[in-house]
């Protein structure tokens, strides 16, 4: 067993444990903090896979900005834990069974595909970071320039929408 595999196994344990902690926490603030840890772990996976730019975006945008927004809203609303009244009794068992079915199905699909084509190889992480960044910028601003611009419009519309939604109505 080589060191890469050990790192991968430990990190994936952390990732799955934090994901489960996120789902099963009673308090929504703990859920958000578990999710931050999960995002950081996944960012380390991106580094292992040779995608440093995506890893840094993950940490700044997801773990930084989005989760701070989540925490802010949770604490602003005081919605840490909803009162446990009137929960549907069959909802949680059904969710668990459906999730189990989904997990079995997807793992079966992956394993059967991996055996059938047999061409899935190990990723190449020996990539020069600066070279990687330059190549990625060339792709993003060359081949994918139009989607990039559309993304900027999307973010602008989302920002305007959020402001309009939460704007106080003037009396009269």
């Amino acid at each position, binding site marked *: 067993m080589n060191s890469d595999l050990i790192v991968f196994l430990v990190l994936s344990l952390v990732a799955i444990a934090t994901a489960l902690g996120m789902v099963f926490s009673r308090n929504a603030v703990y859920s958000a903090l578990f999710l931050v840890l999960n995002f950081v772990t996944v960012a380390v996976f991106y580094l292992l896979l040779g995608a440093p730019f995506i890893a840094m975006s993950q940490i700044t945008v997801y773990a930084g900005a989005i989760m701070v927004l*989540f925490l802010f809203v949770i604490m602003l609303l005081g919605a840490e834990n909803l009162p446990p009244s009137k929960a549907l009794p069959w909802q949680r068992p059904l969710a668990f069974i459906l999730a189990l079915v989904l997990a079995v199905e997807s793992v079966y699909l992956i394993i059967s595909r991996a055996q059938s084509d047999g061409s899935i190889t190990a990723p190449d992480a020996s990539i020069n970071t600066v070279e990687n960044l330059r190549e990625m910028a060339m792709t993003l601003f060359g081949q994918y320039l139009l989607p990039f611009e559309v993304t900027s419009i999307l973010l602008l519309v989302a920002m305007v929408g959020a402001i309009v939604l939460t704007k106080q109505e003037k009396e009269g």
Partner: protein
Amino acid sequence: MVPVDYYIVLSAFLFTIGAMGVLAHRNPLIIFMSIELMLNAANLAFVAFASVHKTFDGQIFVFFVIAVAAAEVAVGLALIVEIFKSRRNIDVDEMNSLKG
């Protein structure tokens, strides 16, 4: 090196946990976080495949997914805040109308 199927299996597990969170919870904030978890699982698969095929297209897709997730969170949280202000409650089982 770690074979890429391990990453894909991990991504499938994370996606499943996210789906379970969406199905099992009544707090829309936790449902939103579960959706983020699912998007993240998909991103992990994208990056794993991009690194196998030695191309940047997968990473570019992850970039776009992150941007869309940010937009989604901004609008969704604004909606949740607004619903909470008008009804003092955000339990999704009690939501049966968008009219304030």
